[in-house]
């Protein structure tokens, strides 16, 4: 929908590269869970939790995650086809019969989540609670059109105007209005109205053995998007159909994927050649997530007052604040310092050299540029774009050539007609030929052009047919020569083949089937932080030793069970290795290198006679084992004894 002119960001400050858009983005997300309560939603199988319980639990988990990813987002829960009607609105006559607004759309907050959790806790002990509280209609369904209409009302009532509004529509009834054309048409019209109002519906269909959910009966038609709406972010892959009998983990996965609305970071032309241009949008699929926002509060005795922090710029000598628009920007030449040395120089030889001094030109220690000049110096006046320079073999993209996270690009047909087919052909061709694209990219205004590799990724699905890898290119910014450092170590002793074989032994035993899978590792520090935060918000106790586990700690039992024999063999070889027991002469300045034989020291240790060594010998040993060399002789000996004790 963007015309070319409102592409790109308007970056105000070009001092540094723009901050990455984190999960906590300016645009807010509002989700209304709209749950169809049928009789079967209450039926649990084999002592499992009922589908409704699990859906509500999913809604709670999503809210908890939102605390991390989108604390500004809003969530609501509406259940329909219930016997009793209820609304959470305080004084509103607007109530949809046979529906319960369990949670009005409002910003994520601790009390609401806690309330939902308490309900689920109660229901866990007594499963009939949910069945009682949300009694399902005996048969039939209230008109879907009305439900959608009401959703729209509920969303607009509770969600901030600017937010991205979505309805997570959950049902296990694939044909609510069998052969009722009128109701179907009405639903369709109202669905259309939702789209008009900028509200999207994300359906989750629940299937079970013997009652497969068939979207083609009703929903595929009703929730079909007219062409002219199929352009924005939300033209998702096909809706999720979850088989409840296999558990809800899949539903949770699906929700995880969809819980964050897709937002692009840039929207720029991809210039393939002179006159051969398509549009692409860029996304950040990997960005380091930090602890959330914080604010300062002042403890004013009785109350806590919110504190606004304000950055000011001060002329320190005069102790005056300088207004923002009065600030001028300049570069300093020569980093302060050395003024004194210079003064000395001034007074010295120079006085007599008048004949040379007469033509002195002024060399400035500050140089001023306007913002526009500075911008031009930094960007070389290149408009935001990705310009293809050619193709290279995939293996030319080295492990070492990395400085920051990658982006993901996907075609944007709205900017250039033909983008999708061109992009698709480029992707297929490079993927088949095992090539990477190589490009010069200016992703946003006021940023420096950077060389990038375009790594093709073919679309891939998991066993359940859910998209695992989306089709597109990963755009990997490469380092400049300026960013690359030489190895500061130039030589090391290399081992013999026996030792390599021994190491191969335990490495073979410790080979995993999969590569690095981010899903397997929650950030323990962040996780712990949020667990504390939640406990404090819920006014509960939290015991990190009982209720927290760090998933990043190696699985020691597995490692030792598999690799112990090989590790022992490797250690034995190393013990015998002559090379390993030679001493590296320590590069002590202006001192003769002191060297000590490890085996000798060990034998003295075993005899308890370390005291026989000189201090510099003890120190040499310690420094070879990267242990501190400070302290008195007794400390040194103690340290060596500790070392041998732990390294038998």
């Amino acid at each position, binding site marked *: *929908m*963007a015309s070319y*002119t409102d592409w790109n960001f308007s970056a105000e400050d070009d*001092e*540094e590269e723009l901050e990455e858009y984190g999960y906590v983005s300016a645009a807010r997300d509002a989700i209304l869970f709209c749950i169809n309560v049928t009789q079967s939603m209450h039926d649990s199988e084999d002592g499992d939790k009922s589908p409704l319980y699990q859906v509500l639990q999913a809604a709670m988990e999503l809210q908890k995650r939102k605390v*991390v990813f989108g*604390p500004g987002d809003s969530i609501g829960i509406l259940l329909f086809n219930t016997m009793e009607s209820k609304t959470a609105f305080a004084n509103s006559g607007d109530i949809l019969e046979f529906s319960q607004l369990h949670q009005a759309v409002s*910003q994520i*907050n*601790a009390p609401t989540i806690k309330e939902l959790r308490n309900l689920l806790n109660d229901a866990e002990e007594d499963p009939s609670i949910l069945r009682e509280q949300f009694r399902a209609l005996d048969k039939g369904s209230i008109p879907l059109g009305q439900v959608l209409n009401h959703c729209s009302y509920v969303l607009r009532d509770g969600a901030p105007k600017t937010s991205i509004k979505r309805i997570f529509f959950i049902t296990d009834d694939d044909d609510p209005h069998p052969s009722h054309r009128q109701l179907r048409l009405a639903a*369709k019209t109202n669905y259309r109205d939702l789209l*008009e109002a900028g509200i999207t519906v994300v359906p989750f269909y629940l299937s079970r053995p013997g009652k497969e959910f068939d979207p083609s009966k009703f929903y595929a038609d009703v929730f*079909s998007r007219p*062409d*002219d709406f199929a352009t924005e972010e939300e033209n*998702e892959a096909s809706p999720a159909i979850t088989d409840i009998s296999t558990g809800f983990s899949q539903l949770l996965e699906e929700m995880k994927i*969809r819980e964050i609305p897709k937002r692009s970071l840039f929207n720029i032309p991809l210039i393939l050649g002179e006159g051969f241009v398509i549009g692409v949008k860029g996304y950040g699929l990997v960005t380091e997530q930090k602890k959330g926002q914080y604010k300062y509060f002042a403890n004013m005795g009785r109350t806590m007052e919110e504190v*606004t922090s304000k950055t000011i710029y*001060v002329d320190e000598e005069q102790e005056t604040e300088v207004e923002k628009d009065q600030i001028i920007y300049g570069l*300093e030449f*020569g980093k302060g*310092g050395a003024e004194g*040395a210079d003064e000395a120089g001034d007074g010295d030889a120079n006085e007599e050299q008048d004949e040379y*001094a007469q*033509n*002195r030109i002024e*060399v400035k220690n500050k*140089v001023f540029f306007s913002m526009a000049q500075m911008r031009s*110096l*930094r960007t070389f006046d290149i408009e935001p774009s990705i310009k293809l*320079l*050619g193709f290279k073999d995939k293996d030319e993209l080295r492990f*070492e050539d990395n400085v920051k996270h*990658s982006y993901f690009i996907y*075609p944007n047909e*709205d900017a250039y007609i033909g983008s999708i087919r061109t992009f698709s*052909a480029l992707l297929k*061709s490079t993927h088949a030929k095992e*090539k990477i694209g190589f490009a010069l990219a200016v992703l946003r205004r006021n940023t*420096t052009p950077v060389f990038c590799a375009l790594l093709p990724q073919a679309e891939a699905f998991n066993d359940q047919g859910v998209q695992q890898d989306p089709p597109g290119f*990963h755009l990997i910014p490469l380092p*400049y020569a*300026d*960013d*690359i450092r030489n190895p*500061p170590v130039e030589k*090391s002793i*290399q081992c013999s083949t026996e030792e390599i074989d021994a190491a191969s032994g335990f*490495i073979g035993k*410790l080979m995993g089937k*999969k590569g690095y899978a981010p*899903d397997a590792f929650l950030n*323990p520090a962040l996780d*712990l932080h949020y667990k504390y935060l939640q406990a404090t918000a819920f006014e509960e106790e939290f015991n990190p030793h009982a209720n927290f586990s760090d998933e*990043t700690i190696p699985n*020691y039992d597995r490692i030792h069970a598999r690799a112990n024999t090989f590790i022992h063999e490797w250690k034995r070889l190393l013990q015998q290795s002559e090379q390993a027991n030679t*001493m*590296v002469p320590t590069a002590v300045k202006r001192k003769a290198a002191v060297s000590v034989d*490890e085996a000798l020291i060990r034998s003295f240790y075993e005899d308890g006679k370390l005291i026989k060594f000189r201090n510099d010998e003890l120190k040499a040993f310690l420094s070879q084992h*990267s242990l501190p060399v400070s302290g008195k002789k007794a400390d040194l000996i103690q340290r060596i004894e500790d070392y041998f004790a732990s390294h038998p």
Partner: protein
Amino acid sequence: MPERAGYTVTMFVIDVNSSMGQTRAVEALGPNGEPYTKEITHLEWALQFVMMKVQEMIFNGRKTDKCGVILYGTPGTKNILNDEHANEYPNVTEFIPIIQPTPSTLSKIASIRASEDSTTSGDSIDGIIVAIQTQGQFLGTKKTWTRKMVVVTDGETPMELDDWEATTQKMNELEIGTAIIGVDFDDEDSGFVEENKSRTKQINEKFFRNEFVPSLNRGIIGTCAAALQDCNLPEPKFTKSVLMQTVLRIGDTEGRPEDSIEISVKTSKCTALVRPVSLKKFGRREGIQADVETEGGMTMVNANAVVPLTRRTEYLIERGEEGGDEDGDEDEEKEKIYEKVEKEQLVKAFKYGATWVPSEEDAWEKLHTVKGIDVLQFFDASKWHREYSIGEVQFIFADPNSARAQVSLSSIVQAMYIKGAYAIVRWVSGDGRDVKMGVVAPRTEEGLDYLVSVQMPFAEDVRKYTFPSLDNLKNRLGETLTKHPNIPTDDMMSAMDAFVDSMDLTHAGDKDEEGNRLPWFTPLDSFNPAVHRVKQALFHGAITSDIAKNPLPPPHPELTKYFEPPSKVLRRSKKALEQCKQVFGARQAPPKVATKRKKVDLDATEGTDDEFSLSDLMGAGPGPSKVPKNSASQSQSGPQSQPEAMDVDSGTEDEDYVKIDMTSVPKSVKAESPKVSKISKKTPTPPPQAASPMEIDPPAQSGKLIGNAFPLKDFNKNVNAANMAQGLDELGIMIVEIVRDSFSTQRFQEAIDCMKAMRKAALEDEDGVEQWNEFLRNLKTTCRSKAFKNGDFWDHIKKVGRTLSLISEKEGAVSDISEAAAVKFMKD
């Protein structure tokens, strides 16, 4: 560059004999980039080189990077050797004692002039000896410092060539790196030969080239021209990575030490982002004229009139508001009263959704972590996802002081290498520090085995977006499509394959020693253009007094050499590119305007009369379409053309994904009920009722009075006293859109014309006055908001001035704006 950065004393030994005062013609660029020739002396020319070197030192700002300047050929004499023995080393002057250079050092160097006294002369060797002594005296016992010497001479002064071997011997003893820079010396590389070279210069040049320099262990000789070219080459600032001590662990080293591996290792940075010098903030001192505008190039700021500013953070508590300000009605913000609080009094609170939770961070137990790198598992390198790398790369070396560590790491590295394995590691940089995940890869070189590591994302760091399949398209009936405008045809695929092949860079670079073509581009050869360009501008700005006369030269070609594909490749790919342009027919989309087609019910068999045929939309025959490169032009150039490949027969019309070209809107477009206001997600629409571009309808059909094609015409034609309120509203919205969509100032005049008409109409309408004033305030806010791209439109309004300002009580009786306020509104 094995030597450490800094810890260097460079002596510049400069020939200022009268011959250096002769002039030469050099090429220069005028204010508008026009080349011209100017006359400067040999000395001035040679000093450019010295100054570049000194600037580099000033720029790097290392305390241990010092220099001194010795002149020879001066009429007078002043040097440490002459101080001792009055008659020795005459006409040699220690001009600048050894210091860390500053800008004023540079101005001193710039002021050096050749001697005008042709009766006295100084000897190169004398200058060199004085420099050795001066350097030696300064460095005294500092044995680890590097000694360098740069001699700049035209070789026109006779030298005493008796005892020079003793000098070179001394220089070798002290390991002085020496460069002889000759003005107009013959140059084998460039084939430069000076004509009519004097006899003296021939002798001297031969001496330097064939005897003096060859006898030096670390000596080079070059011409001034080559040296000047070389020192303009961008060169990465050399930073030595610090080695950090840590341990690599496999297994539970604490609980089961006998079964575990622990290797003492050092880590250091392999890549580290370098940014251009950042701008500092300065404030103007009152009473001093700080800015001097010059025509071209840069604004000159009087450096003495500004002071560097310090950043401070204040913490404020709101304490109510002051009453509204009469004049300030255009911006609604009232003066708030704040109370300052000290940081010590503050408590950090984290957000749990809408709930602020005061953190008892001290009470919250920190994650207990132990410094070190733990191996979790190994895996096949082919399973690694390159795109997961989220940071700079680190080296991991075995402890250089421990043979055991070196052999241990070596065995693991080599075994990983042989098995093609990478490892997953958990990295803790210090006790109690946060955990980072990483993947390490083995590197084995002649005489060195090590690992490289890069940070990997946690589960929280990865966003799982799904994207529509590119080629697995289904129609509404769920059938998979094989033919579709979005699916590349066989023709397209072969055109793209040819394009990819022809643009291959694998053998497009320079030749190696054996004559094989290398790949074009390696990161090691690519310089950060901003870093070096800003530096160049800084250097130039620092020594140039009149930037208008002497503008910043263009960037060094080395900086931009990879900005375009190699010309060879461009030529080779020309045909394939043309073919691609033909078959893909990619072209800029027309500004998107949504249709509100009533095609809601598809299975209801509505009159096909209203259906439009796709082939109608697809336009005429094939042909390459022009896409303006990087242009934001809104105008459609030429007729819309569509390649054959996109011809879709009419049987596919109920498929998804077909883009509708707005040039042919179906006749039967029917408006939705007007009460449904669509909220656009992306368009910056500050006025609350502003429409997104998708909402624009052909006027007659939507109940709207004004369309976006000819708003002013529509306004004049369709709006009368009866529907004035609506008309003004719509025109106002349209004006904001025009401004927003304007490419640069292109449509500003149109917007201003609309505003003039709007204001005129508003004056005649009772409610119109308030509508206008309201609109104008909103417009001002919009223009001032950061998100609005064409905010400079407001400046254009200001130029029009009072006649476009708020309507005051003087003009329209119903206005509550004073005349003064209306005038003021336009001024700020």
